[in-house]
């Protein structure tokens, strides 16, 4: 309507000065109107204006005036040329505009993605990022509501989630609810977004590397219609939403790990302080008992029991550290001579007049191994003390050391009652006690459990076998080592 008035006005204006105008002036003015119309109202308006201009030009400005009759055949040419030029120009202008529109929409899409990425990244807490992403989706697609449900929240049965949310989270498939209340389920993660029928609510699973992380819930006030661009946008958006959810999950996990680490640190500090704070009063108890020992033989029992308590606590702490992987070893190249020498020195008091006979494989060669000397010594001391405890007085204990390939074996044989076959493995369990052992043997019941763990931690093992002629053989294996032995001048 506006354009009809414009056209009339222009025509009137031109009519006023018709006598002084050339045909070219008129065509150019009309062309201008056609182009302006195309820009303002699109291709149809442009073409209509071109048709009207054609008729008006013919009627008012081509002699004879006020008829559609044309005298000069050249005027026909001018008229026709005007029509073709204006129609083509309108058409071309329209196409240009359409392309510009597409480009503008693409740019807007990119802007929205950028905004979404920024939202997802800049928000401090991951949960807020999820909410921010949902809000961007809602605004972009013009929806009533958009929510992101994490799988954990769905599993935990959060604030009454839609049954389709639960279903989608469980199967990883999309679902939609239609205006009439019926539901449609798809057997894949991606619904036919182009044919949404009358869906008023859409449920899209969020997956990363085929793991279901959550569900994207889209709710429209009226049936949701998505243009191809919006469909593309939505597919990309679900990936963003999935990443946001994944970030929440990772953040929560990092928090949990931090809590665990803190708990571990507190536990270590507690263990250290328990052992320290317990030993100080034990020292006083032992010292006081020693002072009294001249008058009362019960004082000696107090000292022994204090020692036993100390051993029990130390063993419990060590077992905890060994199981927790917090035990540090000083594994280096060591000579078997050192180990056996230290063993004989350590146990000589406890053994009394019992014989511990050591057999070294061809006594001349120096046996070397890669182990922690202190802890290996502890294993052997424990084995010798056990053998001593379970053997009758006067029975010999044999320790045979040999190198077998890449391993050193320390076989300790006693002539005691042996271990019943049913309990061969149980003896390595914490707090196991042999059936023959009396409670007052002074042990903690943790020795063998600790010894085996220590052996394995050093790359060796501790095993048990019955001795053919009665008794038991415990075999400790440790990694052997070689060194280019510096030859001593002889």
């Amino acid at each position, binding site marked *: 309507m506006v354009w009809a008035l414009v056209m009339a006005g222009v025509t009137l204006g031109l009519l006023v000065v018709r006598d002084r105008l050339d045909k070219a002036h008129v065509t150019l003015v009309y062309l201008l109107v056609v182009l302006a119309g195309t820009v303002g109202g699109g291709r149809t308006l442009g073409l209509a204006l071109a048709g009207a201009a054609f008729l008006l030009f013919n009627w008012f400005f081509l002699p004879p005036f006020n008829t559609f009759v044309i005298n000069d055949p050249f005027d026909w040419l001018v008229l026709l040329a005007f029509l073709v030029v204006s129609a083509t120009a309108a058409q071309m202008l329209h196409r240009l505009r359409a392309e510009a529109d597409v480009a503008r929409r693409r740019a807007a899409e990119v802007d929205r993605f950028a905004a979404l990425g920024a939202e997802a990244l800049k928000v401090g807490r991951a949960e807020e990022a999820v909410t921010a992403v949902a809000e961007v989706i809602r605004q972009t697609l013009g929806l009533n509501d958009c929510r992101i449900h994490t799988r954990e929240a769905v599993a935990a049965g959060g604030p009454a989630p839609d049954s389709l949310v639960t279903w989608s989270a469980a199967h990883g498939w999309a679902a939609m609810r239609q205006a009439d209340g019926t539901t449609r389920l798809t057997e894949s993660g991606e619904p036919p977004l182009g044919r949404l029928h009358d869906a008023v609510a859409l449920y899209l699973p969020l997956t990363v590397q085929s793991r279901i992380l959550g569900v994207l819930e889209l709710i429209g006030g009226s049936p949701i219609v998505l243009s191809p661009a919006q469909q593309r946008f939505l597919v990309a958006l679900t990936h963003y939403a999935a990443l946001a959810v994944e970030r929440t999950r990772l953040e929560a996990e990092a928090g949990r790990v931090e809590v665990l680490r803190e708990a571990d640190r507190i536990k270590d500090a507690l263990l250290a302080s328990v052992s320290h704070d317990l*030993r100080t009063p034990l020292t006083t108890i032992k010292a006081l008992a020693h002072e009294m020992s001249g008058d009362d033989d019960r004082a000696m029992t107090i000292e022994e029991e204090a020692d036993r308590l100390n051993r029990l606590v130390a063993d419990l702490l060590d077992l905890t550290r060994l199981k927790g992987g917090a035990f540090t070893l000083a594994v280096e190249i060591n000579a078997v001579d050192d180990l056996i020498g230290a063993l004989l*020195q350590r146990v000589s008091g406890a053994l009394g007049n019992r014989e511990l006979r050591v057999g070294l494989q061809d006594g001349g060669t120096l046996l070397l191994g890669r182990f922690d000397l202190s802890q290996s010594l502890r294993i052997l001391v424990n084995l010798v003390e056990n053998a001593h405890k379970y053997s009758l007085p006067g029975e010999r204990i044999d320790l045979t050391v040999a190198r077998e390939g890449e391993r050193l074996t320390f076989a300790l044989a006693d002539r005691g009652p042996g271990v019943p076959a049913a309990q061969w493995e149980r003896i390595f369990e914490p707090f196991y006690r042999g059936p023959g052992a009396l409670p007052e043997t002074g042990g903690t019941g943790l020795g063998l459990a600790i010894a085996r763990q220590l052996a394995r931690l050093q790359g060796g093992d501790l095993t048990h076998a019955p001795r053919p002629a009665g008794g038991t053989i415990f075999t400790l294996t440790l990694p052997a080592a070689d060194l280019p032995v*510096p030859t001593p001048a002889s």
Partner: protein
Amino acid sequence: MLVIDDEIQIRRALRNAFADTGATVLEAGTARQGIDLAAAERPDLIILDLGLPDAPGAEVCREIRSWSTSPILVLSARHSDEEKVRLLDAGADDYVTKPFSTSELQARARALLRRTQGTGAGGASRIEIGGLVLDLAARSLTRDGEAVHLTPIEWDLLREMMTNAGRVLTHRHLFTHVWRGRQFGNASQYLRVYVAHLRRKIEGDSLRPRYIVTEPGVGYRFATAAESGARD
């Protein structure tokens, strides 16, 4: 002697333990007080508890050691080898873990006192321990009267150990004193091998050493004359 410990009960127990020896026992409850007393009184022996409230034990050791030669016996509730090595390297002479037995502590204290009061370690050119006679001037060793041939490294190792008889020498101490200025690869591995060879030359039974005692995880200690004689 000087006892530095923040626990009154332990100070009391130590005072009683050394009362019969006729020794004068000085007491300090903090590191600062202990260091001041050690400087003023020049005690023959310092017993130092590591759990002091005002300073870490290794620091106290190092400070006292920087101007005093008095033997330091450390009491610690921590049992790890690294802790022992750290304290010995900081200048402690011996190490007893809590809870200790009074008799053991008395024996260690006696050994430390005997070592510093005896003449052995000073400027003597001849050290005699058990059947071993080390002549520093002549660079010779005899075992029960018979000459024993030693390689240069074995000689340095034995000399370092015998001049410090009774003292625990950490692996690190031995490397720095024996391998100083020598070309070596990983001396920490060879040290054990040299000790093993040395034992075979001077010990009757290298599995039951009279002289070179292994201190597991820490180092070696050469027996004192009294010990090596008594164990025979």
